[in-house]
């Protein structure tokens, strides 16, 4: 019983997401010039852009699937693979680079056991690189989801990351 409930619950959740996606598509229907805005909203819903979502957006906005795929892979912001619950991004812009951004990335890779652009098996973390988030006065900087951390030390780094479940 319990598992059945969970299953239908997950299904219902997914259905709800696709329902919301339909609303987004309706808003931008037949307007190819609003593709990027629509993709932003779609990724906000799903956390990434699976093929089915790409197909629906392409159909709704009247652009080809290859164009949608082209745009998604061009911009850093969009992802076609599922992301972890928490997105850890180490800044490697020039200012952070001078102040040890590289060492932060190495530390995170070692501790999380993944490389940049990968996700941990338990989906708790995705690790990525970001090129300058405009927090150069606080170099080296790290971004976890929407939170900016500045003057991060390799010794303190994991303490911060572990706070995110």
């Amino acid at each position, binding site marked *: 019983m319990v598992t059945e409930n969970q299953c239908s619950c997950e299904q219902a959740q997914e259905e709800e997401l696709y329902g919301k996606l339909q609303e987004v598509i309706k808003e931008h229907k037949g307007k190819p010039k609003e593709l990027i805005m629509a993709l932003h909203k779609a990724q906000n819903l799903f956390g990434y852009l699976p093929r089915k979502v790409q197909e629906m957006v392409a159909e709704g906005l009247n652009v080809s699937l290859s164009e949608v795929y082209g*745009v998604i892979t061009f911009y850093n912001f969009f992802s076609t693979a599922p992301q972890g619950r928490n997105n850890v991004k180490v800044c*490697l812009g020039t200012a952070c680079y001078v102040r040890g951004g590289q060492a932060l990335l190495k530390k995170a890779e070692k501790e999380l056991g993944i490389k940049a652009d990968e996700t941990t098996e338990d989906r708790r973390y995705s690790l990525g690189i970001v*090129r300058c988030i405009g927090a150069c006065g*606080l170099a080296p900087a790290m971004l976890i989801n929407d939170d900016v951390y500045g003057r991060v030390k390799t010794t303190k780094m994991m303490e911060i990351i572990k706070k995110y479940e």
Partner: protein
Amino acid sequence: MNLVRNHVLISIDAGTIMAGARAVEKALIDEIAAQGLTAEISVLETGSIGATGQGVILVVYPEGVYYGNVTPQDIPELVEEHLLKGRPLKRLILSEIPVQHVIKKEKTGLLKEQPRIVLKNSGIINPENIDEYIAENGYEAIAKAITSMTPDEVIEETKKSGLVGRGGAAFTTGMKWDFARKAAGDIKYIVCNADEGEPGTFKDRLILEGDPHKLIEGMLIAGYAVGASKGFVYIRGEYALSIERLEKAIAQARQYGLLGDNILESTFSFDITVMKGAGAYVCGEETALIESLEGKRGHPRNKPPYPVTEGLWAKPTVVNNVETLANVPEIILHGASWFRGYGTEKCPGTKVFTIIGNVSTPGLIEVEMGTTLRDIIYEYAGGIKNGKKFKGALVGGAAGAFLGPDMLDVKMDFVNLKEYSAVLGSGAILVMDEDVDMLDMLKSVLHFFRHESCGHCVPCRLGTAQLVKIIDRISASKGKKDDIDKLLKIAQVMQATSFCPLGQSLYLPISSSLKYFGGEIHSRVR
């Protein structure tokens, strides 16, 4: 009516948020409520005060007391002492007091006098309240333009002021407007480039966060001059707070009839839409940005035709940087000759610099064009951190130029730097002390370009990959004798043949690093 006795301004920017500004703000509001002072004391958010590294910063008016490094634990004491009993809490008062105010030269948190035109209101007014902007002569310039100047006069005044684009290319703003005005077509667009992606640059973010109405007014004036009724702000997706503040400001301006149809009862109509970018450095290039605005991959276009004749949806389009547009209201309000009172003969006005790297007080400053690099580093940024020696600076972001110690007294403006084959670019100054490995710096720049090359043209796509391969080899002590010549040669070919400025600009960091630090870099190759 409630009489507000004290205003507490809390500086909200990336730095203070990181230091816990939101928690302090919440604690403050709760404590004020607990003391029953809600009706008498108002808590307002403002933008950056221009000082970083001071933790959470609060300013209490009317006294004008600045507090730094405030934590939620300090709040009960601060509220009781200062707000209830009227005794400023000495232990938290900032020693370097950033004094306001307008366009006169006065002191700020970064030690020295700054003439503030662009950042006039930043950190002083509440950016989420249009009335505060209006109280600082806001929207007077557009009113003056609409009621007493023809569009041609606005363009003429802007031309006379000598204002050039602050995004890096330094093209004369008035001329750009003139071209677009004279271009054929009924529909024209104003696009504000807020896709600030040059590493080390965050000036536009702080203008947007600290004084969004200034940008709106600048765009209105540009729209009036050019004959456009629609504007777009293309803004980095990462700049969440900027987007939120700008959208709020646009909604308020609409409410006041300052955006929309028949502005100030004239025949001029103008509205602004905010568009979120999606993370691509190349979209800072104006034609790539236009492609992206149209919902496509951000590939640069062939020029000519230039955007001023065929831009967004093939209509005449002006693309201006945030800082450029933020200069416009003051120029229209006070006149071109007033503006020419700042800066140098050939390069009037001020420039907002972001000064970062190994300096004591990194941050944002606005100084006159032509201020020397030495003054910027030693007077405004407190000198090199930990008393170390200055080794070099990377000026203008990743696409900029390295400068060596003998360039400390060079005047920092667009025209003068050109004579030294350097650029001012976006105004990022990355300072490096004696311990910085120059080869490693150059490596980071080249890696950046490989990542951001958009793949549209062959020289840039393959060139950046080869450059990275070679520099990685040198860095791993496996460099070959002719590797450094190869770096230079590849960059030369890229400069001559790349489709857009991204690939063309790589020659500069490579050649300039070899010019000033050639010995060090050559010693890494057997």
